[in-house]
Every structure is written in structure tokens, then in C-alpha cells.
């Protein structure tokens, strides 16, 4: 695919990650890597462990085994605060916006790690607090423009339709200026037109900001269209890894989706 930025070196590599809840093995020795500026998809049937994988990547879940290497640093497990600091941002399968706040405030909150002034300065609205607020407002407005949500800036997110909420969530994640963006089913429950919009935004983000993208998606058409490489999970194991065309032809993948009995 034609890209503004060339795919670079390995940004993230996951080695033998296993995760169990009680007796249930959600992930079983999964390894894969993600290159810089790449769009990497994780697919698989329901319950394959895709969301768990994302949750491990940004420290919501802690794996029982395995390591994660991100930008040359190695981790036994991530801590979500630290993951955010390293530049990993995230959207959720069931929208996780701050419902009581406006769109603008949600996106502003996405920049919280970039705020330097203390709460006392904020309370007194002193020079630095005011200056920072303005600076970040400019940055946030740029993202709002980029995702075309100017008109709903001051609307509480709870009042927005589903498709727009997903877009706001993307805006909030982008506000952190992430190195890597994890998208958990960014197009679930959307109609065709909304899906097309979302695809365009994802590719634009990848293009314009050079953000590496890891996404989970069920719509195969979308996955094949926008991703550079695909990981396929089934029952917590990796069963295939490669370009969309390679993966599509893989017998194991076809079996997993069509449901061949597991011996």
C-alpha cells in the first residue's frame, strides 16, 4: 500500500505472552511484533483473546508469562500509567469515554500527561496554568478539526450517537500524541458510511502523524483493506501471521473461522 511514511524498524515485540484467569487460558504463548508506522491487525473468532492481548499491551491485564519489548525497553508486564507515558494510547471495544464531560474536556483530558503545572497553579489560574491551558487547547483543536468533530465540541459525550462517540474516543487517544495506537474494534456497530469515515481517519492518522496502529476488527473487508500485516488468534494461540493475502489463504485460519472440530 502507498504510505506517506515508510514502515520502519521493530517498535514492539511480544514474546511468549500467556494470561490466565483462574483456569481459563485467555492467551497461550503468543509472540508477534509490530513495525514502526505499520497498521497491524489482530483478528480471530470471538473469545480468541484479542482484547486480552491489547489489555496486556497497555497494562490493564498483567500476563503470567512472557515479555513485552517496546522501543527497546523490555517489560515483564506493563503498568497502564507507564504505558501511557511511553506513548501507547488506546480506544475500547465498549466506548470508555467520560460521559459527564464535554467532547472538548474529554479530548483535553487526553493530554493530561503533558501538563506541567501543579494543582495550586491551576487553582490560582496563574501564568503557567493559563498558558498551558491555551497551548493544549490549540493542539486539541487541531485534532478536533482533523477528525471533523468541531460542531459537537461543547456537547456532553453522553448525548452523542454511537458513531460520533467512537470518533471522540479516537480524538482523546490522539490527543496524547501517541507513538502507538491500540484500537479495539473501532468500527463495531457502525453502518457502511461510518465505517468508511473511520477507515479514512485511521489511515490519515497513520499517514499524517506516523502513528503505529494495532487494531482489532471483525470486518474482514476492512482488515484486508487497511492493514499491512495481520496476526490471527484462536483460543488464545497464534495460528497465523503475515500480510492480508497470506493470511487469507492460510488453511488454519479458514478452519478457525469456519469452525473445524478441534481435535
Amino acid at each position, binding site marked *: 500500500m502507498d504510505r506517506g511514511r515508510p514502515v520502519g524498524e521493530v517498535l514492539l515485540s511480544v514474546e511468549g505472552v500467556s494470561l490466565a484467569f483462574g483456569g481459563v487460558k485467555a492467551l497461550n504463548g503468543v509472540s508477534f511484533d509490530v513495525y514502526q508506522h505499520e497498521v497491524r491487525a489482530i483478528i480471530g473468532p470471538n473469545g480468541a483473546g484479542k482484547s486480552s492481548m491489547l489489555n496486556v499491551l*497497555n497494562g*490493564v491485564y498483567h500476563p503470567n508469562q512472557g515479555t513485552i519489548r517496546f522501543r527497546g525497553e523490555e517489560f515483564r508486564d506493563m503498568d*497502564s*500509567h507507564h*504505558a*501511557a*507515558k511511553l506513548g501507547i*494510547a*488506546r480506544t*475500547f471495544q465498549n466506548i*470508555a*469515554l*467520560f*460521559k*459527564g*464531560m464535554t467532547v472538548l*474536556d474529554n479530548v*483535553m*483530558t*487526553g*493530554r*493530561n*500527561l503533558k*501538563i506541567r*503545572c501543579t*494543582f495550586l497553579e*491551576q*487553582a*490560582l*489560574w496563574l501564568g503557567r*496554568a*493559563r498558558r498551558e*491551558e*491555551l497551548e493544549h*487547547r*490549540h493542539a486539541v*483543536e487541531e485534532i478536533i478539526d482533523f477528525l471533523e468533530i468541531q460542531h459537537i465540541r461543547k456537547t456532553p459525550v453522553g448525548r452523542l450517537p454511537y458513531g460520533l462517540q467512537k470518533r471522540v474516543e479516537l480524538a*482523546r*487517544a490522539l490527543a*496524547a500524541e501517541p507513538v502507538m495506537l491500540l484500537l479495539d474494534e473501532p468500527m463495531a456497530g457502525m453502518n457502511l458510511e461510518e465505517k468508511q469515515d473511520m477507515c479514512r481517519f485511521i489511515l490519515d492518522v497513520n499517514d499524517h502523524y506516523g502513528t503505529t496502529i494495532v487494531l482489532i476488527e471483525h470486518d474482514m473487508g476492512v482488515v484486508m483493506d487497511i492493514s499491512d500485516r495481520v496476526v490471527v488468534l484462536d483460543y488464545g494461540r497464534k495460528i497465523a501471521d503475515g500480510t492480508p493475502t497470506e493470511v487469507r489463504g492460510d488453511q488454519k485460519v479458514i478452519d478457525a473461522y469456519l469452525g473445524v472440530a478441534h481435535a
Partner: protein
Amino acid sequence: MLYREAGQFKSTYAQDQQIFPILQDRIGMAVLLVIAFVAVPLFGDQYWLSAILTPFLVLALATLGLNILTGYAGQLSLGTAAFMAVGAFMAYNAMLRIPHMPILGAFAIGGLCAAAVGLVFGLPSLRIKGLYLAVATLACQFFVLWAINRIGWFSNHSSSGVITAQRMEILGYPIDTPAAKYLLTLSVVAVMALAAKNLMRSETGHAFMAVRDMDVAASVIGIPMMKTKLLAFAISSFYCGVAGAMYAFCYLGTVEPEAFVLDLSFRVLFMMIIGGAGSILGSFLGAGFITLFPIFLNLASKSLENALGIELSHALVSNTEAVIFGALIIFFLIVEPYGLARLWQIGKEKLRLWPFPH
């Protein structure tokens, strides 16, 4: 037609980020402040100043404190009165034990001590949420009151723990008339309310609300859970502590620990619910409503007595008051969970469109 923002264009983000972006709001606020600072102390009578307006302001500040913790940061506390008690008794001790202590310094010390206590009792919030935390804050309520009652140091070993607030003066001016006490309270409350407003519209406030609305997402975007929750507890208890100090110094004068029982915590909670959780304005509306309501009820029962020629017992009136308060809380939670502040906002939106509502 009066309340319109048409024609008030914002050409910079700085203009858009003002506290009151709409001109009419700014005028309204200015008028309100002039009335509160000038007209009321000039023309208000002693009873209103000392028995209604001062406690109203103090309780509004406490409600604001609770609102920061519960309304904004989503951590329900039933220990507000305990934080107020710490503020009151520590301000008293600061005046007592530190020579030449300025009164505002004593208030601040009261607030800081309350913040420290809030930090300690906020620690469980790192591991527990919601209802469990609410019960944990009850521990604070009972423990603090017990400590103040039993440990003589707090009340300078007075009998039954009663303290008498010291004389107050600022820059040589004595604060001893109802008007002076009212003005002192008003100034402190106004400054602290402004600070709270600033705080809640900046990153700190956003972090609080993020923790309230969706804590997993909050930590994923890098909001530190521990720091944010503890900060909410500390700031909230600071506000409650200062309110407690003023409750003692500007309102009651003579205070016993029993002034800060669980019932007061509940009353402040009610003020927050009726006024509107997560609203600074709501804290004032709620406190105003609950302060004025018993007075209104009293008047009503008096006129009822006169009309019927009977005498209603005190117990009857106070029980009726409890029933009505309780029922009002339930009513508000069902009908308008965001309280009077939300009604006010709806009213303003209506007014903006009036007289063409479509």
C-alpha cells in the same frame, strides 16, 4: 431577549476559556458580588447575618468540599462532618498554641490538618470503590469524633470537650460584629469558590471527572489513580476543614464535638444532592435551599398555629422536617439527579431561546 449570546463572538481560545464566557453572566455575577459584599452588610439585620447568611456560606463551602470529592471525583464520603471537626479544633489549637497567629493562618492550618486526615482515610480508596468506600468514610466520622472527645489536648482539657473560639482580628480590625464575621466568611468562601472553579476546569478537575466516569480508561490515558484520588481527598478535606473552622469561629463561637455528628455529614450530603452533584453553583444553591427550608417550614407552622389556634409541638415540627428532607432527597434523585444547578441550566437554555423556542 435579555439573555443572549448572539453577537458575542469569540475570536481566540483565551476568550472562549473564560470562567463566564457570556456577557450577561459576567454582569450578573458582578451584581451579585456587589450585593453580597456591600448591600447585605450595610442593610442586612443582625439576625439574618449571623443566624442565616453566615451558616449558609459556611455550609456552602463544606458542600463545595464534598462536591469536589463526591460530585467531581466520584468518591462518596459520609465523613464530611469529621473533616469539619478537624478544621474547627485544629484552628482553635493553632490560635491557642501559636503566638500571634493570624486568624486566616489558623483557618489554613485547620484546613491543612483536615487535608492530612483526609489523606489517611482516603488511602483505602486505592483498593476499594463505591459502597465499600462509603462505609470506610464512616470509620473516619466515628474515629475522629471519638478522638476529639477523648483526647483532652484537642479542647485544651475543657470539660466535655467544649471549645470557645478566640477573638478574631485582621490587621488590627476586630472581627466581632455579625457583619464583620459575615464579611470574613464571604471573602474566604468567594476566594475558595473561585479557586475550586479554576481547578475543576483545568487538568486536575478533568482528571477527577475521568476517574469518576471511567476509571480504567482514565488510567489508560495516563491519569495516575493513586495521586488523583488522594489529591481529591486532600483538596476536599481542606475545603471541609476551612468550613469547619469558620463554622466554629464565625458562626457558633462555642463548639462541642457533638456539633459535628453524622447528621451534619448527611445534611451536607443532602445539600450536594439537592444543589447538584458536580456543580460549584449547585453547592451554593443546595446549601441555600437547606438552610432556608427549615425557616420557611417554621413560618408555615407558625401561621398554621395561628390559623387553627393550636400549638404544634417542637417534636412534631422537627420530625416533619426530617420526613420532608428525606422525601425531597428521594424526589430529586428520581426526578432531577443533577439537582437545582441542572434546573438553573435548563432555565438558562430556555431563556436563550425565548421567545422562539424552536
